[in-house]
């Protein structure tokens, strides 16, 4: 009986520090551990004692790639705790800045982190030697996403303009209009991107996932809505804790999320698409049809096409919001603190992001809980790897390792977020 190990100590092209260790005894997987050694930073602990208005700035520091996600979910939670609702104009501006983050994050992942796997390059920089136009298109798309975040939020990473109740300053119509030529180019480039990735080869892997995403009656979900699942769940953010819980396992500094009965579930672009495809914008819907995407998409490698579709959607939505833009007056509403618990959710680029805070009557935080998308996907990623390895034992260690890495990158795991996540080792004894 031959034994093999696959061992990747430091997984590349993901955000943060993770590893994979797989031990095989013949064709049996005896051990599979997707580990997270990113050091813990204890956000939930040091948020206690801080003032509720400070939380959007502090939680944005959980992740440099998706700060808008953290700011949005925490602001939603604080407004829920204090019992306020904001104007439609503020909600529109929140959706616009979130579109910027989806474009920036998806373009980064699609072109710089994931496409090199499909095309056989070590990195996008290697890829740029043969495919300069594609890489330059990806960089420009990413730059436009960042430009949206910068105009609305003040800067790309850890933007400064979002606050509980709205924005410090509403951008002027003229500031937003400066984005228009790039957004029009970007919509066209995003449509070309969808065609490009549709032509990739997708490894065979189909699984019967439990998909979980937000849903909103008026729009493809981003900053507001309820939580729904492919099993018929339909709950408010306040009910999240009664349906999902986190487990702490030894190999990981990230907590693993499962449903009440211990079932792994899948969040992110595929879950959003499968549960909300009827809400796609016109160009995004047409591009999905051209790409042959029909819900449910159950091959996780095809998530790269879904990301391209969501980039198209984000450009269409950005243009629409700018067309209809009326600066919110005032840019923020007053939010007097009141004692209570608030629940906040939003769709970060990688999936559902849940926050819960308890504050006292002076607005000081007594308790905080944050569940990032990568924690929720971690058990599902391990289950994908189990099936993928079982079906591909004939591959060499080198090819199997690369395919495992590619499968992990299907989820665009953000380890910095999940640690509160990867290093790959395959052991074949």
């Amino acid at each position: 009986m031959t034994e093999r190990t696959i061992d990747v100590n430091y997984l590349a092209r993901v955000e943060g520090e993770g590893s994979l260790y797989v031990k095989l005894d013949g064709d049996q997987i005896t051990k599979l551990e997707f580990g997270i050694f990113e050091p813990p930073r204890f956000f939930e602990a040091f948020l206690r004692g801080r003032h509720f208005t400070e939380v959007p700035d502090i939680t944005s520091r959980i992740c440099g790639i998706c700060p808008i996600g953290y700011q949005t979910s925490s602001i939603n939670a604080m407004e829920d705790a204090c019992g306020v609702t904001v104007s439609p104009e503020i909600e529109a501006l929140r959706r616009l800045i979130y579109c910027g983050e989806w474009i920036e994050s998806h373009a980064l992942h699609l072109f710089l982190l994931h496409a090199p796997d499909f095309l056989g390059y070590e990195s996008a920089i290697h890829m740029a030697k043969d495919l300069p136009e594609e890489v330059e298109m990806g960089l420009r798309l990413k730059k436009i996403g960042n430009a949206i975040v910068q105009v609305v939020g003040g800067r790309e990473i850890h933007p400064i303009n979002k606050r509980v109740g709205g924005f410090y300053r509403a951008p002027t119509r003229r500031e937003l209009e400066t984005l228009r030529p790039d957004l029009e180019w970007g919509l066209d480039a995003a449509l070309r991107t969808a065609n490009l990735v549709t032509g990739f080869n997708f490894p065979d892997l189909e699984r019967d996932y439990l998909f979980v995403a937000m849903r909103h009656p008026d729009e493809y979900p981003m900053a507001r809505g309820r939580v729904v699942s492919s099993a018929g769940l339909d709950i408010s953010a306040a009910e999240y804790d009664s349906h999902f819980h986190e487990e702490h396992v030894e190999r990981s500094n990230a907590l693993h999320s499962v449903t009440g009965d211990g079932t792994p579930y899948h969040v992110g672009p595929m879950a959003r698409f499968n549960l909300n495809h009827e809400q796609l914008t016109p160009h995004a819907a047409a591009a999905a049809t051209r790409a042959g995407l029909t819900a449910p998409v159950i091959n996780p490698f095809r998530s790269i096409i879904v990301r391209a579709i969501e980039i198209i959607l984000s450009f269409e939505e950005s243009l629409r919001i700018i067309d209809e833009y009326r600066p919110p007056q005032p840019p923020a509403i007053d939010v007097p603190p009141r004692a209570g618990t608030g629940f906040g959710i939003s769709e970060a680029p990688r999936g559902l992001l849940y926050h819960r805070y308890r504050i006292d009557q002076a607005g000081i935080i007594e308790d905080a809980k944050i569940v990032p998308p990568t924690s929720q996907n971690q058990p599902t990623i391990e289950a994908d790897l189990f099936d993928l390895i079982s079906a591909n034992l004939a591959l060499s260690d080198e090819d199997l390792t690369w395919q495992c890495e590619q499968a992990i990158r299907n989820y665009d795991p953000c380890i910095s977020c999940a640690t509160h996540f990867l290093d790959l080792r395959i052991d074949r004894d």
Partner: protein
Amino acid sequence: MSKPKLAVWKFASCDGCQLSLLDAEDELLAVAGAIEIANFPEASREVAPGPYQLSLVEGSITTPHDAARIQQVRAESEVLVTIGACATAGGIQALRNWADVAEFTSAVYANPAFIDTLATSTAIADHVPVDFELRGCPISKHQLLEVVNAFLYGRRPDIPGYSVCIECKRRGTTCAMVADGTPCLGPVTQAGCGAICPAYHRGCYGCFGPSESANLESLISEWQRLEVDKPTLVRALRTYNGYAPEYRAASEKLEASL
């Protein structure tokens, strides 16, 4: 002549500062042309062995493993530049330095015994000699490109140590504190961000850490004149650069007087 080798290292952080290199969309391929990106796991699977002529280090030291790893990084690096508030001051996670870490661990994790962590989050310079510290939470990509350029030409980076006030004047922003009575950390915070916050009608919150010759005492009395209470002042000084010596001394003095 072979190109100098660049390595990017991550310790406890949010990834935002190394992302700044990928965010230099117009310059990334040019940088890759001038430097061999030899070890940058966030961007590439390929890892070339050291030694490296330039190492950019993101993140703070928070675990025994990382305290040992930074020694190895230093040994493999000719020039070591720390990037961002985590690496230069311990970051937001340095809030643990004023708290009980065992209690923190049990607040976040069900099985605290699985977690191996130090009681403190500290700057890289507290562990190894550092050739240059680039401040910011996040760093400015323009300043990062300046540092990489300066390294390529063998000169000192031109990174000013003056305060955000200078950038506000240059930008033509009316003083938030004087004109609007908005508490602002700009007078004691190093420039580099471009004075964004006051231009968005909020006070500076200190992302770039203490400016040169920062007068904390004067700033604190001005905030108190604006009727900011001491606990709020302590919190304002204890964010992303809270453990930088000047901010730390001021917040600890305030706390002792509570």
